[in-house]
């Protein structure tokens, strides 16, 4: 999109519903935040009426609670337990099926129609997480065909963050609270006593085209300033922060830091952090057959480096201790990822902090290692030799 300033509009609360209806009419499956089981989750929605109007959340390490607001804001909360990963890299996916034949078997590749999805309310950190997953699953020699198919037609409506949660640290990771690119439309919700409207920026031609079908007015300089200052305030309210300078080297040289033992005493190896993480991409495959043994299939499921069998090779488990699994997870996310994919694997969404049943906080763990850089190395626990 050239000349972004000419693609900024204002849409009223009423017409915002129309925007979603328009996407639906255009054949998109609407996916967005909705209130379920006392949490704001991502699911199929029919329209703006299914958004969690008037709800917010309160988060802390190991805590997540939804709460009523005194207005009807549609997006005045932070990220919940779900991420868009569940629509792009499915939690469970049949990769192929095989039929037994007279002299062996025959493999049938899946050929499933993929819905055209519209993601409503993708936060800037999540937009970055999608870009990270794009790099992991489609940026190398091998392209994950199922992910690529789903991703290709996804229409992204970003919601710029007008408030920060207690576990947010997108500013530290350079991923938010305002997204500048990667979306079809980017929405800043403006709500106060006398107005409820959305400043919307089109990031692609498709986005501009959809927006053109909805009543709107061009954003004035004041509207735009208003939207900008809303996210600037958010940047100043970050609940957490992480010092990222030299973090890769910090973690490389602290593989034997005593903090890993300390965090292992608290970590339950429950896998929650990896399940809620929007960039964790590990999957396991399982081969199954029907009862008659005539049809076999391979199912791919989300896996976690906290599972014991994750590192199983004949003769044993490479990472039997929780210490080594936590170290693997955190070091992969913040250090190895740079070598593997050219960026951090962490986007600062804070989900792993809120959803850890033991309240383990990645920002606190890194700070503890940094505070005692090189601690424990001289104690000779370095190698087996």
């Amino acid at each position, binding site marked *: 999109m050239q000349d972004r300033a000419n693609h900024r509009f204002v849409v009223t609360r009423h017409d915002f519903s129309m925007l979603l209806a328009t996407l639906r009419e255009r054949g998109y499956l609407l996916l967005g935040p909705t209130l379920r089981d006392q949490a704001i989750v991502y699911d199929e929605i029919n329209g703006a009426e299914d958004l969690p109007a008037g709800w917010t959340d309160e988060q802390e390490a190991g805590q997540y609670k939804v709460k009523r607001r005194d207005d009807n804001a549609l997006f005045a909360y932070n990220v919940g337990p779900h991420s868009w990963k569940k629509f792009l890299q499915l939690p469970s996916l049949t990769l192929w099926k095989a039929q037994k034949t007279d002299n062996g078997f025959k493999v049938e590749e899946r050929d499933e129609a993929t819905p055209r999805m519209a993601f409503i309310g993708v936060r800037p950190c999540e937009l970055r997480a999608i870009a990270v997953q794009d790099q992991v699953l489609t940026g190398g*020699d091998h392209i994950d065909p199922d992910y690529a198919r789903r991703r290709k037609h996804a229409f992204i409506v970003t919601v710029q963050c007008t408030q920060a949660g207690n576990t947010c640290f997108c500013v530290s990771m350079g991923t938010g609270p305002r997204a500048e690119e990667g979306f079809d439309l980017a929405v800043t919700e403006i709500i106060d006593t006398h107005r409820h409207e959305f400043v919307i920026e089109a990031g692609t031609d498709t986005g501009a085209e959809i927006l053109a079908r909805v009543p709107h007015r061009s954003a004035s300089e004041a509207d735009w300033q208003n939207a900008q200052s809303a996210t600037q305030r958010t940047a100043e309210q970050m609940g957490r922060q992480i010092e990222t300078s030299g973090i890769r080297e910090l973690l490389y040289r602290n593989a*034997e830091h005593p903090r890993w033992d300390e965090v292992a005493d608290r970590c339950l190896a429950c896998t929650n952090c990896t399940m809620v993480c929007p960039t964790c991409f*590990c*999957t396991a*495959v399982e081969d199954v057959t029907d009862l008659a043994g005539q049809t076999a299939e391979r199912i791919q499921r989300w896996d976690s480096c906290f599972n014991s069998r994750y590192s199983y090779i004949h003769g044993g488990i490479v990472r039997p201790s929780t210490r080594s699994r936590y170290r*693997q997870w955190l070091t992969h996310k913040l250090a190895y990822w740079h070598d593997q994919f050219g960026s951090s694997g962490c986007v600062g969404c804070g989900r792993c902090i809120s959803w850890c049943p033991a309240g383990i906080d990645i920002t606190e763990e890194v700070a503890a290692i940094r505070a005692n850089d090189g601690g424990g190395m001289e104690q000779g626990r370095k190698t087996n030799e």
Partner: protein
Amino acid sequence: MVPHPVSIRELQRETHDTFTLTLEPPDRDQGLSFIPGQFTMLYLFGTGEVPISISGDPAYPMRLVHTIRAVGSVTRTMQHMQRGSMLGVRGPFGKGWPVEEARGKDIVIIAGGIGLAPLRPVIYHLLRERGDYEHISILYGARCPADILYSRELESWGGRFDVDVSVTIDYATTDWYGDVGVVTSLLDKVRCDPGKTVVMTCGPEIMMRFAARELNRIGITDEHIYVSMERNMQCAAGTCGHCQYGPSFVCKDGPVFRLDRIRPFFGTREI
């Protein structure tokens, strides 16, 4: 990334727990070309898939050969399959041994147990292009005489005047007159110029660690030592995550690594 059905042409018992499968290649015209050190994923209908190094001769792509140790549900079933039975195959995958970089150098091959299988293709290659390499030594360690893999071939290589073959075992039986002890103890016998030697080693990690230490001691630096690593592998394309070893994915960045490139992780416990 789906397995190609292929039939078993030959199944040969090697030791009590190892066997060699010769498979028909998926492409019956071209065969399956591979670089020594690469592996494939072998699929047993409805049961699962296992990563297995190719142990055949790279000059004969029509013969797809794997030597397998029966250790899990898939490999134990494979051990008892019949000629003509079908398996699935994907691959080849990964980075192999440095046969090009090694030209003109002294070569030391150090293998432990079934670790000889991924090295056999490179031995075939070295012997075929014998004139391109200087002194060649093969050091092999097994648990006991009955566990010596490819014993006939080791004997025949040992009978050549242009290759030194040494075999040692951990536990001697009364009919064993050879060396007893760890494979690294054989290094003292090796004739090589440490400054122009390439070492290729595959075996248990503990063996490779001690080998590296001894090699460093005799003046062979990490840049000239290549190790074949093993981790859990499922996708073989670097996307399932299981084979991570520090920042490397063993399935695509390895399984063969130049030691200096993984040195920070080599020997770190539970990495």
